[in-house]
């Protein structure tokens, strides 16, 4: 299967290690990654969608036309990109007038949009398209013995009619099942579905309250779980959940909050045997506590098989 990778802005510019992890692991799972040449901003909700619907739709149309031209669907990691592209496509395919107008705007650029390419979130591709079982069968290393918690990207849950792929957006399971496929135990906790709070203007307009809001989540993780790591599937969650821990520690004057945060694709790429210096190169909260404890799955499998053989014999 071919999928057109929509990188967004933050991932290629600030966290290219996540992009490396995606480009490394998808082909191992049978997905050919096609580049979105000349893509532009999704557009971010704080940009055109907040200023002018016409320019929002035109920008969405520009991007969607790229996947359509390549003849495949988009795969997106960033939650905001995913939701913005999904909403843009939704507006266009359900409103013939809007679609016609966007095509008028696109025409001089040599582009066209019909809505034939869909927009898929990478966690949906991994969970529904490939499946935890197949992922588990490909591992060279694993997270056996480690505990994790998961952070579902809001933009893959709500509004479920437009972005959703879970049976219930109130009780999502995709990310948990994907982390479990890597061998880790996933601990549930009371604030699992609380937003990270990192997108939009909240952190800018009310930094004190936004930090307090995020802290309630981290305190719940510390009090209620044995988490060795946090697995996210959105670039904003990743950057924000690292950043706030460092701010908490600075304010406290002690290293109380230091739970490594990984994009799921990074954990996956590590377990597929890729070099941490490439797929997990940039960490604002140290990750050695997890990377040094990756289990050698090939060796463990060999030992288990030998044991079974001896028992049978």
């Amino acid at each position: 299967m071919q999928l057109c990778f929509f990188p967004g802005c933050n991932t290629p510019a600030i966290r290219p290690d996540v992009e490396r992890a995606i480009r490394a692991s998808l082909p191992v799972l049978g997905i050919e990654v096609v580049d979105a040449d000349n893509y532009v901003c999704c557009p971010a909700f704080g940009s055109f969608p907040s200023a002018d619907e016409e320019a929002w739709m035109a920008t969405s149309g520009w991007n969607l036309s790229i996947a359509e031209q390549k003849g495949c669907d988009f795969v997106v990691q960033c939650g905001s990109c995913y939701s913005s592209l999904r909403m843009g496509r939704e507006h266009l395919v359900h409103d013939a007038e809007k679609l016609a107008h966007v095509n008028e705007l696109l025409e001089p650029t040599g582009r066209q949009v019909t809505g034939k390419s869909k927009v898929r979130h990478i966690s949906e591709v991994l969970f529904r398209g490939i499946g935890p079982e197949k992922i588990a069968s490909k591992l060279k290393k694993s997270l056996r013995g480690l505990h994790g918690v998961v952070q579902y990207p809001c933009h893959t849950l709500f509004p479920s009619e437009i972005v959703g792929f879970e049976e219930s957006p109130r009780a999502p399971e995709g990310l948990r099942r994907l982390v479990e496929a890597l061998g880790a135990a996933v601990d549930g906790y009371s604030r699992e579905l609380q937003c990270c709070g990192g997108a939009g203007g909240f952190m800018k307009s009310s930094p004190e309250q936004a930090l307090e809001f995020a802290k309630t989540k981290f305190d719940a993780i510390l009090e209620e779980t044995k988490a060795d790591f946090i697995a996210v599937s959105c670039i904003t969650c990743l950057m924000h959940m690292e950043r706030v821990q460092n701010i908490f520690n600075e304010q406290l004057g002690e290293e109380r909050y230091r739970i490594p945060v990984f994009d799921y694709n990074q954990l996956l790429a590590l377990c597929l045997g890729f070099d941490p210096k490439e797929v997990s190169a940039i960490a604002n909260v140290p990750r050695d506590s997890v990377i040094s404890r990756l289990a050698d799955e090939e060796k463990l499998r060999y030992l288990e098989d030998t044991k079974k053989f001896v028992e049978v014999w």
Partner: protein
Amino acid sequence: MDLQEGSIKDLWKDIYHTGNLHYCFNCSTCISGCPASHGEPPLLVRNLARKVILGLEEDLLMDDTPWACVSCSRCEEMCPMNVMPFEMILSIRQWQCRNDETLIPSAIVEIYKRGYTQAVGVNTELRESLGLPQLNTITNNPEQLELFREMLMKTQVVSDNDYMFKG
């Protein structure tokens, strides 16, 4: 406050033209679970709906709480009357921008100029060190960037405020 029927009707049509808005009965579901409702001042989505319905134009134009929204869309999911509050927030921002150009987010100027809100495609050394290919970005493709700009120049927010995008 002008409570003449005409002005009330006109404002919601101008801001958020959907009949469902009038089904809002202030239940506050949109506030429970909203991260920005913890802000100072808090984002109170149902109050915004009320301001639109009642046509409180001046009050709404001065209100910067819609910009605190984190776009998590919980309100969109949970609203029992299908008001689609997140889309309403975006519509309020758009209306504010139409009436006060100083509110137009600078991000759209960046997108016009280089295609992205971040400097995508310039961190070549870092990308190389990670074994990543260089991206075929629009920033590095002047011909495509010009076509993109020409397209945007035909949209209202860019053409009405073209001075922001030049130079």
